[in-house]
C-alpha cells in the first residue's frame, strides 16, 4: 500500500508566476482556480475572531488612486492590513499629480519610497501597463478606464460559485445588464466568465453596447483558447430568461449628455432590473451589482435588497479576493517562467 505524503497531496496544481495583475487576458483557468482556493483560505482568516495574519508583515502596499473610489480603496486597504502589510494611501486630491507630475515620475518616486505592491486605479485605459514599465515591484490593477477591473471580476466569480449549487459556472447563464460600452467590470467579466464556461449575455441599450458585437463576433467560433463565446443583445427579456445570475451595472448621467440615452427614466422603463423582469430568470437566480448603485435607475430598491441579492456578499468577498491577490503577487518572482521576456514583463 502506497501512501501519499500530505505535502504532495496538498501541492497546488499550478503556481502563481505573474509579476503583476493588470488584466485577466493572460490568466489561465487553473490560475483563476488557484485564486479561488486562496480566497477560500482568506475567507477562513476573516471568519476568525482576530481577522489578521502576518503573511505580508513588513511588506509595503501603496494604493494610488487617480479616480475617486472610497469603496474600492478601502477594500484594498482593509485586505492589505488584514495581511499585516504597511499601507500608504495616495489619491489625486492630495498628491502632486494635480501639479502636473507624470504617472511615470510618480511611480518611480513611490518605488524609491519603498512601495513593493502598487494598487492602482486610473481613468485612462492601459495606464497600469505604463506604470509597470518603470515599476520594479508588483502592480495590482484596481480598475483602469473602460479596460479592466480584474479584482471585481474575480470577486464576482467567487460570489457566483459560492451561491450557485455545485459551485460551478459551467453552462450557467449569466446576464450582465447596463452600460457595457464604458464598463471595465463587464470587460474583465468577459474574460473570467468565458473561461469558467458560463453562458454569458451582455445586455443594454444599443448605444451602450457599441463595438461589443465585434468582440462577440470575433469569439463566436470559440477560437480563443480557454474562452467560450458570449452573446450581446438589447433584448432584455432574452438576456434575463432562465438566467442563473443577473448583474446590473451603474448608469451614469454623463451618458445622456453624450447623446447615448434619451433619459434615465427611459432607461429604467426599458432595462431596469425590477421584480417583474428578474422573475424571468430562474427562481433561485442571484442578483449582483458591483456598486455603487443608482437605485431606481438600473436596479429597483426591492430587487437590490431582496433575498436573491448577493450584493453585500460581493463586498465581503472583495476583501478576501484582494487579500488572496496581494498574497499571491507578493510571493511571485519576476523571472519565473521566463515572464520577463517581451511585453510579458508588464502583463
Amino acid at each position, binding site marked *: 500500500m502506497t501512501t501519499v505524503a500530505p505535502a504532495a497531496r496538498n501541492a497546488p496544481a499550478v503556481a502563481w508566476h505573474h509579476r503583476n495583475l493588470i488584466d485577466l*487576458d493572460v490568466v489561465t483557468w487553473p490560475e483563476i482556480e488557484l485564486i479561488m482556493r486562496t480566497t477560500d483560505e482568506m475567507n477562513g482568516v476573516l471568519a476568525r475572531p482576530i481577522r489578521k495574519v502576518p503573511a505580508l508583515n513588513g511588506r509595503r502596499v501603496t494604493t494610488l488612486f487617480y479616480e475617486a473610489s472610497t469603496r474600492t480603496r478601502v477594500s484594498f486597504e482593509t485586505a492589505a492590513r488584514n495581511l499585516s502589510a504597511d499601507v500608504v494611501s495616495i489619491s489625486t486630491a492630495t498628491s502632486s499629480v494635480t501639479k502636473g507630475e507624470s504617472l511615470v515620475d510618480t511611480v518611480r518616486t513611490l518605488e524609491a519610497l519603498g512601495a513593493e505592491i502598487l494598487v492602482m486605479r486610473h481613468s485612462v485605459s*492601459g495606464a497600469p501597463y*505604463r506604470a509597470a514599465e518603470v515599476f520594479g515591484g508588483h502592480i495590482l490593477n484596481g480598475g483602469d478606464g473602460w*479596460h479592466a477591473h480584474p479584482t471585481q471580476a474575480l470577486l464576482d466569480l467567487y460570489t457566483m460559485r459560492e451561491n450557485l449549487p455545485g459551485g460551478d459556472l459551467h453552462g450557467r447563464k449569466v446576464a450582465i445588464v447596463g452600460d457595457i460600452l464604458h464598463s471595465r467590470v463587464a*470587460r474583465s467579466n468577459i474574460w473570467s466568465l468565458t473561461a469558467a464556461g458560463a453562458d454569458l449575455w451582455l445586455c443594454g441599450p444599443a448605444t451602450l453596447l457599441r*463595438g461589443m458585437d465585434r468582440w462577440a463576433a470575433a469569439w463566436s467560433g470559440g477560437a*480563443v483558447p480557454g474562452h467560450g463565446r458570449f452573446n450581446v443583445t438589447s433584448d432584455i427579456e432574452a438576456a434575463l430568461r432562465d438566467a442563473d445570475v443577473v448583474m446590473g451595472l451603474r448608469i451614469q448621467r454623463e451618458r445622456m449628455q453624450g447623446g447615448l440615452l434619451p433619459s434615465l427614466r427611459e432607461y429604467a422603463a426599458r432595462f431596469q432590473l425590477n421584480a417583474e423582469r428578474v422573475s424571468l430568470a430562474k427562481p433561485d437566480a442571484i442578483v449582483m451589482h458591483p456598486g455603487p448603485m443608482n437605485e431606481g435607475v438600473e436596479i429597483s430598491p426591492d430587487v437590490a435588497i431582496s433575498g436573491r441579492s448577493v450584493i453585500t456578499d460581493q463586498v465581503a468577498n472583495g476583501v478576501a479576493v484582494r487579500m488572496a491577490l496581494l498574497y499571491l503577487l507578493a510571493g511571485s518572482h519576476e523571472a519565473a517562467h521566463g515572464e520577463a521576456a517581451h*511585453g510579458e514583463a508588464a502583463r
Partner: protein
Amino acid sequence: MSADGNGVRPGALGPKIGETVERFELAKAWLVDPVSGREGPGEIVVTDGILESVVWLEGDEAAGVTDTGVIVAPGFLDLHAHFREPGFEDAETVASGCAAAAHGGYTAVVTMANTKPALDEPGILERVRSAARASASPVEVHAYGAVSAGRAGEQLSAMGELADAGVLGYSDDGAPVKSPKLLRSALVYAGMLGLPVVEHAEDLELTAGAEAHEGYVASVLGLAGWPAAAEVGAVARDLAILADVLGDEPRARLHLTHVSTAPALELVRRAKANGLPVTCDVTPHHLAFTDEWIAGSRRWAWEALGADGKPRDPWVDGALTGQPYDTSLRVNPPLRTAADAAACRDALLDGTADAVATDHAPHTTVDKEVEFGLAANGISGIETALGVLLALVDAGKLPLARAVAALTVGPAGVVAASTRGAGTSAARPRGLVEGAPADLVVFDRSEGWRVTPGSLLSKGKNSPLLGREVPGRVVLTIARGRLAYEDPAAGENDA
C-alpha cells in the same frame, strides 16, 4: 570615393554634409529609374555634383547584379513632414528633420504648417527657410501654408502672399478644415492661385475623445472608438465640395493626405475615375501596422490576414508579444485593420494613392511617456519609411519599382498637378538623368538596420519600430549634388 556593388562603401574620406560630392562612382548596382520606368544592373558616376553618367549593364557585365543588393534610386520627396520649427524645437528642428530625412533617403520634404506660430504668413516661411539654410543640409525644404489664419478655421490665411513666397499648397493638417464653407472658399481661392488644398480628412465630432480605431481591438482594450466613418464622411464631404467648385474655379485642386480606410480610398478611386482633380497619399504606418499593435502585436499588417484573406485574431494565435498600449502607436488617423492596410497597398498598386507620405510627427518623451489616452498623436517615421516599404517588397506585396515610384515620381506628380506647383523644383521629374545635379539615394537591401533611439537622427524617438530590425540600410544620400547623408559605417567593410 569609389565603390562597387559588392559591399564596398563610398569611403570615409568623402565630403562633409552639405559639400559638393566631387567624385562618386558606383559600379554594378541595381538602378531604378521611375521616370523611364527602367530598372536593372548599371553603374553611375557623379562628378562635381553632377550625375555624369548612368550606364545600363547587359550580358556578362550584368551577371550577379540583382535587385536584392545595392540599389540606386532618385532621391525621395516627402509630401508630409512635421519639422516642428518654429515653436516645438524640443521635438524637432528643421536641421534635425533634414538629417533624419536624408537618413531616410529623402532629398526634399514639404513641411506642415502646424508650427507655433502657424505658418500662415510669409514671415514664418522665411524662418523655416533660414533654419534650412543654417543647417547646411542640402535637403530641399518646401512648405505648405496654413489654410486658415492661425489654423483657427475661421478666416483664410495670407494665401496670396504665401503663394508669392513659394508655398506648395495650403493645409491646416493636424486638424481638418472644419467649416465646409471655409473649405469651399479655400479650394476656390487656392485654385485661383494655382495651388492645392491639402486636407486632413476627419470629422472632429465623431472623433472627440477617440483613442483607437473603432473595432474589435478597441473594444477589448476599452479604448474609445475612432470610427472609420469620421474619415469616410469627411472625404465624401471634401470631394463633394471639390466637385461643386470646379464650375467656378476649374483650377481648384484637392490633395487628401494620410487616407487610412478602405471606404475612403474607394471614394477617391471613384472620384478619380469621374475625372475630379484629386490626389491622395497613404502613410508607411497605415500600410504596415494595424490596431492590433496597440494590444501588443508586432507583426506586419499583411501577416495579420490569413491565407483566406480573413483577419487573424492576435488573441488566438499568440501574436501579442509586445508592450500593450505603447504610446508610439497613438496616431491620427489611428492605425486601422489589416483589411484597411491592404486597401492602402491596393490603392498604391492601382494608382488611387499617388504617393507614400510619411506624416513624420516627432514628439518629445514628455508628450509620449504618458498614459495612452493622454499621449500626443504621431509617429516619427521619415527614417523608417523606406524600410517599411521594403518589408512590403520583401513580402511580395509591392514591386520594388512601385515602392520607389511612390517615394519619387508619385509625390512629384502631386506637386506638378497644380499650375503653380508645376513650376517649382519640387515638381521636377525624379529620375536618374545624366547631366543633371545628382539627386539620389543608395541603399543596400542585403543589410537591415536596427531602429534605436541612437540610430534615429530625428529628435522624435516615437517609433513603433524601436528595437526592431528593418530592411534596407541607406548608405548614401546626395541632394542637388551635395552630400546629405553618409552611413557612418561607410568604408569599414572596404576590402
